[in-house]
């Protein structure tokens, strides 16, 4: 992907964007196939147990569900390329605004979790590497292994019991206070527990990666030279070690964002966070095909874009990298 040679960042970005097309196409086929092949019928679910066969069939015709699957897929794709994700089956509303509204909440949660993961993970990783084999190193790596092992729903429930029910420091659910509260501070206050819950595993993984990455660099000759010429240790770490150790960490960030977006669903349900995940799960239950398909496409697009951005970030931290 990245090679030493002539420049051409825009060309590289364009080529990567083109590569995203088959991936998103694959995602659309996969989500369409899995949903439509799953047993269950949105019309029957919508009309309930009392509906007659004729009612269900009429609704099928109205929704276009009586067409062959290929026709349904092509019709949906035709809408999607025009920027229209269709209409939700039970709600009857356009999918795009619904999904975008919910997605904003998911993004806030993901960003909060990512911030926590970055701050905790980088700090713990750097400290462990610089003070290798000290009690601080052992402690933070021990905590990291534990953090990686904890299931999201367990962490969430424990945090709720301790910090929401017992100590009453933070709210246990929702994104804003029911009365009056809608400012940034209120959202942040609601964000604390869910973001910690979602970010813990990522923080732990980042800490371990940062430690190994920094340790690899710290043994290089140029670090010894930097120390030998009398640079302060702080400057050696910041300028010579971290700048070189950061690339694998950035690489992982892209995957972590996907992991957080995918994992946000459980956190959202535990904390009643009004995000995309909880809506999607309800939509799968109702076999609301357009809503699920639209939501999955949105998340997949975000993942692809974030990973492209991550790949483009390399060049900033490692000027040796040229895209061609």
């Amino acid at each position, binding site marked *: 992907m990245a090679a030493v040679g002539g420049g051409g960042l825009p060309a590289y970005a364009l080529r990567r964007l083109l*590569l995203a097309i*088959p*991936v*998103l196409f*694959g*995602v659309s086929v*996969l*989500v369409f196939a*899995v*949903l439509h*092949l*799953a*047993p*269950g019928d949105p019309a029957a679910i919508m009309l309930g147990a009392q509906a007659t066969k004729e009612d269900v069939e009429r609704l099928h015709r109205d929704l276009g569900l009586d067409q062959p699957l290929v026709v349904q897929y092509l019709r949906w794709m035709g809408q999607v390329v025009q920027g229209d994700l269709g209409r939700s089956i039970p709600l009857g509303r356009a999918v795009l605004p619904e999904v975008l509204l919910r997605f904003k909440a998911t993004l806030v949660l993901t960003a909060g979790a990512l911030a926590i993961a970055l701050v905790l993970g980088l700090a713990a990783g750097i400290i462990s590497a610089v003070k290798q084999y000290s009690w601080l190193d052992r402690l933070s790596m021990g905590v990291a*292994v534990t953090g*990686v*092992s904890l*299931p*999201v*729903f*367990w962490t969430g*429930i424990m945090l*709720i019991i301790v910090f929401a029910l017992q100590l009453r420091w933070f709210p246990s*659910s929702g994104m804003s206070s029911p009365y009056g509260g809608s400012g940034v501070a209120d959202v942040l206050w609601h964000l604390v527990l869910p973001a910690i819950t979602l970010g813990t595993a990522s923080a732990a*993984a*980042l800490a*371990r*990666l940062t430690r*190994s990455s920094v340790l690899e660099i710290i043994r290089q000759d140029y670090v010894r030279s930097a120390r030998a010429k009398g640079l302060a240790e702080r400057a050696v770490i910041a300028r010579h070690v971290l700048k070189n150790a950061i*690339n*694998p960490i950035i*690489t*992982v960030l*892209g*995957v*972590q964002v*996907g*992991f957080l*977006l*995918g*994992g946000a*669903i*459980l956190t*959202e*349900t*535990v*904390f*009643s966070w009004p995000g995309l*995940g*909880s809506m*999607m*799960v309800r939509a*799968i*239950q109702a076999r609301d095909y357009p809503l*699920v398909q639209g939501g*999955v496409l949105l*998340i*997949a697009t975000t*993942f*692809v874009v974030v990973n492209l951005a991550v790949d483009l970030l390399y060049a900033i931290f490692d000027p040796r990298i040229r895209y061609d």
Partner: protein
Amino acid sequence: MTDVVRIFRRSSAALFGLGLVAVMAVLAVLAPWLAPRDPDAIDTARRLAPILTAGYPLGTDEFGRDLLSRLLYGARISLVVGLTATALAALAGSLCGLLAGFVGRWVDQLIMRSIDTLMAFPYFLLAVAIIAALGPGLVNGMVAVAVVNIPFYGRIVRATVLAVKQTEYVESARALGVSELRLALTHVLRNCLASGDRRRDPQYRRDDHGAGRPLLPRSRRSAAHLRLGQHAGREPPVSQCRAARGGAPRHRDLSHGVGLQSAGRRTARRAGPAASMR
């Protein structure tokens, strides 16, 4: 094999982890003898007994079922699902990675784009959707968890294959006239597995916490009330580690939000509580 022993001996952390898993495995295997009572026996008079109640060392859940027994029996399912799903994912992922890296060209493009597709798909929804399509059940659950984890193995193996392919011993084996299939399976794949050098693909360094991962999606999913079998009413009620762990908050109605009883929703209403009562 001796390599494995040596690696384990050298690392106290690895030994500790191995010991932990071994203890869990022994407890799971011996569950029928160790568990004080039937994990599914309901005793409504003793609902929500606190920890250290006489006869119920870890207390009871909202149906009065013994939590210790449920944990012991649940460990069996968690371990079997975790290990099987990991093995499945590793097998399928390694094959994909080997094919992509060794054959290259359009095969590589096709496999890697498919893997990218799987990765771009939100994994939790993918698992829920697979369960919705295949129907609930232990085997389908394992398939779902395995599919979700294929990309991680696929990418690591492919990156390693690309590196091993360049080595001189592969070149000389090819010069000696070794068939491509044999070359791929014995010379390349074996060396990929042996070196296990995940660092070649820095994206997956995060995966160095290895086999524990698939256990978690499993628990995540079950937390979501996809309690396989129990809801479908096709298989006897099962307790999992998680069923015990996740049971506590349910009566606080937390799980109302967590209620992703996707596939067996209507069957659940019919068979769910009844199945538990059996």
